C-alpha cells in the first residue's frame, strides 16, 4: 500500500470531532474516490493525508513509513489540489505558479522553463500564462491549480472536488490526466460530489459516515447500493437511474454512457454472429 491512512482522529480548535476513526488506503495504479455529504470532512481528510494538518490520533503512512517522519522532503511526492483554487494559488503569475515547485527540484533555469512550457502546452494555458491567477475565471484557476501540481509529477495525487465549476471539455481533460496517472502507477485519491465523474473514473469508493470511513469496495457496488448513496447524500448515476426505471438493472448494469454504449455495441454484434 503506497498510502495508508490509519485510524485518524481530527478536530479543529474548539470544534467537534470531525474525523473519528478514519481509515483508508490506496495503492499504485488505483483511483480511489471519497464521497460524503457537505461538511463531512473530505477536505480535512485530504489535508491530513497530505501532511498539512496534524491528526489528534492515528498515523498516515507512505510506503509503510509514517508520513510525519518523512517531512518535508516527502511533499515532493504528494500533490494536493485544493478545493478552493484561490487558497492554492499564491504566485504573482501563472508561470510562477507552475515554476514554484520545479525551481526546488530542478537544477537550472532552462530545465524549469522547458518543463513549464510542456505543462503550458498540455493544459492549454498559453493565453493566460502571464496573468495573475486572481484575474482568471474560476474554471481557469482550477485548471492552473491542477497543472501546478501535475508539473512536479507527484506519486500521490490528492484532488479535492476537481470537477466543480468546470465545463465538459476540462472535465474530459481531467479524466484523461487521471487515467494517464493511473497507467503510470500513481496513487490517485479524489474527494467529489460529482457522481458521474466518480462513476467514470474511480476503481474503489469510500464513504465518510459521521467521522468514520466505510465502503472501500469496487465502485460499482457502492454506486448501486442505495444505503451508501443515502449516507453520501448522492443520487445514482443517470444511466443507472434510467435503466432501473426501465427495469433493466442487472448484475453488471452500466453506470456511465461509455459503459452503456460499449455494452450496446457488443450486444448488437453478438446478435449478428
Amino acid at each position: 500500500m503506497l498510502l495508508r491512512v490509519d485510524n485518524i482522529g481530527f478536530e479543529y480548535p474548539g470544534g467537534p470531532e470531525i474525523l473519528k476513526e478514519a481509515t483508508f488506503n490506496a495503492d499504485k495504479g488505483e483511483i480511489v474516490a471519497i464521497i460524503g455529504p457537505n461538511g463531512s470532512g473530505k477536505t480535512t481528510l485530504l489535508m491530513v493525508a497530505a501532511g498539512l494538518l496534524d491528526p489528534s490520533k492515528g498515523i498516515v503512512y507512505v510506503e509503510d513509513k509514517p508520513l510525519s517522519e518523512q517531512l518535508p522532503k516527502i511533499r515532493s511526492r504528494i500533490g494536493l489540489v485544493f478545493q478552493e483554487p484561490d487558497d492554492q494559488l499564491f504566485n504573482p503569475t501563472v508561470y510562477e505558479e507552475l515554476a514554484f515547485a520545479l525551481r526546488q527540484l530542478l537544477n537550472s533555469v532552462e530545465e524549469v522553463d522547458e518543463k513549464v512550457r510542456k505543462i503550458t502546452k498540455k493544459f492549454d494555458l498559453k493565453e493566460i500564462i502571464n496573468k495573475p491567477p486572481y484575474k482568471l475565471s474560476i474554471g481557469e484557476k482550477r485548471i492552473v491549480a491542477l497543472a501546478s501540481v501535475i508539473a512536479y509529477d507527484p506519486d500521490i495525487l490528492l484532488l479535492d472536488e476537481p470537477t466543480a465549476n468546470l465545463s465538459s471539455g476540462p472535465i474530459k481533460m481531467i479524466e484523461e490526466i487521471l487515467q494517464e496517472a493511473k497507467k503510470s502507477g500513481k496513487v490517485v485519491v479524489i474527494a467529489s460530489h460529482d457522481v458521474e465523474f466518480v462513476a467514470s473514473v474511480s476503481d474503489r469508493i469510500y464513504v465518510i459516515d459521521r467521522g468514520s470511513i466505510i465502503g472501500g469496495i469496487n465502485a460499482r457496488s457502492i454506486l448501486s447500493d442505495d444505503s451508501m448513496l443515502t449516507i453520501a447524500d448522492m443520487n445514482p448515476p443517470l444511466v443507472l437511474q434510467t435503466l432501473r426505471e426501465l427495469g433493466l438493472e442487472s448484475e453488471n448494469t452500466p453506470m456511465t454512457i461509455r459503459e452503456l454504449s460499449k455494452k450496446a455495441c457488443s450486444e448488437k454484434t453478438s446478435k449478428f454472429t
Partner: protein
Amino acid sequence: MAETIDSLNTEARIPLNRPLVTASALILTSAVAFSHDFEFPLLILLLSIGIMILTNTPFRPWMRIITLTLAWVILVSIPLPFITPGEPVMSFTFNSMVLNITEEGLHIMIIFILRIVSASSIFTAFVLIIGWRGIIRGLEFFRIPRELTLLLKLSVIHIPLTIREAAKMISARDARIMKGIGVKKLWITLASVVGELFLRSYERAWRVDKAIKARSFESTDNFSRF
C-alpha cells in the same frame, strides 16, 4: 489600486545586497518620516529619484504610488491649517462660524505632506529596485520573527485578492438592500464589511500558508498543527 500594488509584488530586478538595501530603506524611511524641516525630505525625494535613474528603474509604478499617497495625505491633512492655533492668513465665515487658516497650520501641513510623500517615495524606490520579496528576505536576515515576515508576504500577495473580496462582499450586500440607504446604515454596512474582511484575510492567510507548505520541499520548519 490592485494594479498599483501588483507592481510591487515583484522579484528583484537587480542583484544587490538585500540586507544592506533593506537596512538603508528602513533607516532613510524612518529618518525622513520623523524629520522636522523642509530640506531633509526634499533631499530624500531627490535622492529617491536619483537612485531610480541610476538603477534604470521604470518610473510609472513609482509615480502611481506617489500620486496615491499624495491624494491620501492631502485628504487627511486638510484639517491641519484650521485647527492649528496661530496667525490667521485667511478666514471664512460659515454658518456664523469663523474658520481661520493659520500660517503655522499651513507650515505644518506642508511639512507633513512633504515628509510622508518623501518617506513613501524612498521606500517605494527601494522596493521597486530589489523587489518586495527582496525586502522581506532582507528583513528575514535581521531575524525579524518569521511570523511577521510571513504575514507581510501573505498580505502583499493577497492585497489584490482582499480588495476583490471586499468589492464582492459590498456588492453582495448591496444586492440585498432594497430601499434607499441612509448614511448611518451605510456606515454600519462598511464597518461590518471591514471586520468580516479581517477575519476572511486571516482565514485565507492560514490556507495559503498551507498551500505554500504543500509545495515547499526543502523548508525545515515542521508542520504545524493549525
